[in-house]
């Protein structure tokens, strides 16, 4: 007999038609899967009662794959085939990875065009991309979920950091597809945490999500208005997490040993691992206790027996705590907020269980953070709530949360300028269209260059994709009407299409950008756009003036070649040519006003030439025609 869950009134599923939806927190250190059962979001455990699945994948000799605790146990014995923290490489190319010397993997440049230059890792079973490795983690979670729910999954909401760019989001979606999971939506991690606390039920407010995980620290400032979470600012430290606290304890233990045994021999790898485990246990014990006894026997026979108390621990980890406050301060400043405008602070990540972190956060924000949900699970719980809504198990349709674009998206126009089509912080999904036209007479093709960023010049923005529209019917410059539509779906994936309106000719591209942007880069791009606003404005004016001048020169050159000898006197011809030369010279400068003046002057002095050309062509068209045959 099947096991039933309690539904919302009137929302009972038909037999065999259960919408089994889960939320997945695909983390750097650990991953989780959660679902809503009888109206309650719960994290699903594996057969051994573990909720957290270490995000570790190991490729075995026999082509098998181990994921989770088993893989993690072999991390030091089989380092090159055991991949940890693969999330850091999602959607990244080789040149994006700093400090490669400290990472045990053999990275391979990917020559396959399809993969857009994402790196690969060499393992004993061949080269594996981060997408394939992540898919193994997702497959394990999917199997766990299907066992726990007794059926095939309808879909999943997968969380990603707020600063993930299009390439990283696309890579996450690809990994899910590879794992056979239908992605209902990608959701920003801080947004998921806010949902888990039901903050989306409030009408509006500003919330800070403080996420200190195993190896990464992320701070996000969200504004909720009319049911939409907008990411106001993100910041963090990609090399700061709970593991650093373990390491501090580890170092402290070594110092204590060396105080007693001054020439203590260096630790073996095994002993290092043992002491790190003991350090982690001590850290966890100190969350609820005043002191922790650290005892173990090292391989050289030395017996460790040390007591660590809370105040010692707090003292030598205080600077780690302070290290989280700088990015926090910056994020608040970037968001343009003062502390009293913040309505709530949510703690995420196992490391936020440490009491001195909670105190530091409470002191900083002058309010108690929200802590009643398990900080390891809160992101997955929120994702499950969202998945349940998206799968249609709730009637409240208005609960659909939206995310926003982190940076503006636009197209290159003449002169290397960027025309923004979708502005920054537009809520997703979004579609915007704009009409463009041809620059030259008889132009039959147009190339589109899709860009991301806040700056005015193409060279200062990030190139996402290029595509072409060919076979435009020849027309005079400016006559073709090409409608370019930018569409971003709910997961933040962009597709751009161009359609020539008279002929119906169409071309489009789905943007899978080649490399990712780090949060720092996004931050820098934003910052530079503010700092460079005035320069950008001038640069734009110059480019526009140059484009206009070039356009005029182009059409006058064409007209002169055709008709100058017939219509103009040698003096008139000479006058126009000399002004054209003058304009060409001035164009090279960056004085937009001078260029505009010269353009205007040339335009004026060719007016009578243009008028006479017009008369001549009308006369030519009418010559030999009977008045009756003209349709007027």
């Amino acid at each position, binding site marked *: *007999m*099947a*096991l*039933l*869950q*309690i*539904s*919302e*009134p*009137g*929302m*009972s599923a*038909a*037999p*065999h038609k259960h919408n089994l939806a889960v939320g997945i927190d695909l983390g750097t250190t650990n991953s989780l899967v959660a679902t809503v*059962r*009888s*109206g*309650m979001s719960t994290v*699903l*455990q*594996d*057969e051994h009662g573990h909720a957290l699945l270490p995000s570790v994948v190991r490729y075995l000799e026999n082509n098998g794959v181990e994921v989770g605790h088993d893989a993690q146990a072999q991390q030091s014995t089989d380092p090159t085939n055991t991949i940890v923290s693969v999330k850091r490489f999602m959607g990244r190319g080789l040149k994006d990875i700093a400090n490669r010397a400290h990472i045990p993997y053999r990275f391979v440049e990917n020559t396959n065009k399809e993969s857009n230059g994402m790196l690969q890792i060499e393992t004993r079973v061949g080269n594996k991309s981060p997408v394939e490795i992540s898919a193994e983690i997702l497959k394990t979670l999917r199997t*766990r979920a299907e*066992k*726990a*729910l*007794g059926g095939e999954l309808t879909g999943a909401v997968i969380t990603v950091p707020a600063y993930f760019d299009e390439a990283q989001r696309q890579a996450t979606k690809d990994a899910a597809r590879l794992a056979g999971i239908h992605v209902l939506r990608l959701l920003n991690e801080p947004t998921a945490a806010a949902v888990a606390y039901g903050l989306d039920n409030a009408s509006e407010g500003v919330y800070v999500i403080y996420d200190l995980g195993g190896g990464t620290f992320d701070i996000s400032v969200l504004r909720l208005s009319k049911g939409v979470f907008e990411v106001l600012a993100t910041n963090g430290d990609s090399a700061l997490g709970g593991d650093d606290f373990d390491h501090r304890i580890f170092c402290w233990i070594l110092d204590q040993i060396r105080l007693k045994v001054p020439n203590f021999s260096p630790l073996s790898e095994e002993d290092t691992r043992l002491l790190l485990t003991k350090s982690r246990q001590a850290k966890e014990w100190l969350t609820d206790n005043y002191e922790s006894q650290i005892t173990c026997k090292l391989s050289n026979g030395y017996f460790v027996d040390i007591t660590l108390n809370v105040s010692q621990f707090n003292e030598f980890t205080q600077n780690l705590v302070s290290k989280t406050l700088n990015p926090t301060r910056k994020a608040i400043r970037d968001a343009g907020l003062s502390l009293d405008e913040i309505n709530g602070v949510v703690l995420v990540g196992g490391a936020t269980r440490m009491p001195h972190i909670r105190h530091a956060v409470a002191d900083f924000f002058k309010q108690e953070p929200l802590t009643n949900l398990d900080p390891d699970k809160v992101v997955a719980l929120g994702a499950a709530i969202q998945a349940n809504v998206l799968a249609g198990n709730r009637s409240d349709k208005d609960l659909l949360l939206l995310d926003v674009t982190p940076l503006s998206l636009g197209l290159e126009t003449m002169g290397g300028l960027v025309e923004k089509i979708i502005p920054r912080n537009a809520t997703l999904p979004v579609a915007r269209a704009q009409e463009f036209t041809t620059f030259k007479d008889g132009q039959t093709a147009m190339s589109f260059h899709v860009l991301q960023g806040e700056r005015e010049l193409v060279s200062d923005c990030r190139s996402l994709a290029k595509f072409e529209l060919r076979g435009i019917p020849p027309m005079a410059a400016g006559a073709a009407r090409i409608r370019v539509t930018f569409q971003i779906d709910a997961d933040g994936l962009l597709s751009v299409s161009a359609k020539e309106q008279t002929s119906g000719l169409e071309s489009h591209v789905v943007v899978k950008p080649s490399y990712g942007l780090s949060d720092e880069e996004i931050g820098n791009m934003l910052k530079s756009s503010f700092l460079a606003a005035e320069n950008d404005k001038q640069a734009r004016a110059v480019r526009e003036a140059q484009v206009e001048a070039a356009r005029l020169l182009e059409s006058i050159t064409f007209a002169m070649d055709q008709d100058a000898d017939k219509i103009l006197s040698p003096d008139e011809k000479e006058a126009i040519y000399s002004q054209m030369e003058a304009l060409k010279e001035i164009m090279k400068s960056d004085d937009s006003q001078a260029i505009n003046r010269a353009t205007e002057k040339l335009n004026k002095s060719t007016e009578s030439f243009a008028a006479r050309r017009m008369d001549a062509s009308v006369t030519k068209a009418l010559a030999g025609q009977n008045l009756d045959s003209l349709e007027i």
Partner: protein
Amino acid sequence: MAISLTESAAQRVEKFLANRGKGIGLRLGVKTTGCSGMAYTLEFVDEMQPEDMAFESHGVKVIVDPKSLVYIDGTELDFAKEGLNEGFKFNNPNVKDECGCGESFTV
């Protein structure tokens, strides 16, 4: 006759109701659908209908509409775990035949 809950089922229902933050009880019912004729429904109740019948079991209010009651009278609702899966189970004395999965039945 009546409808009842086992103690473990009642505890779960209370927990889920508390988590949901609203609702007066649990509705058991049947729908004429599914491969063997009828299917069970299990829902939270925010509002009682005038014709509804109410029972009390281990402190939980159980609500059934009279049309459903004839098919499930005497049912005991249990909470069970099967491997990683867990959920509610109808022990219905009226059932003559079930479909393979047990999601629908005939009386």
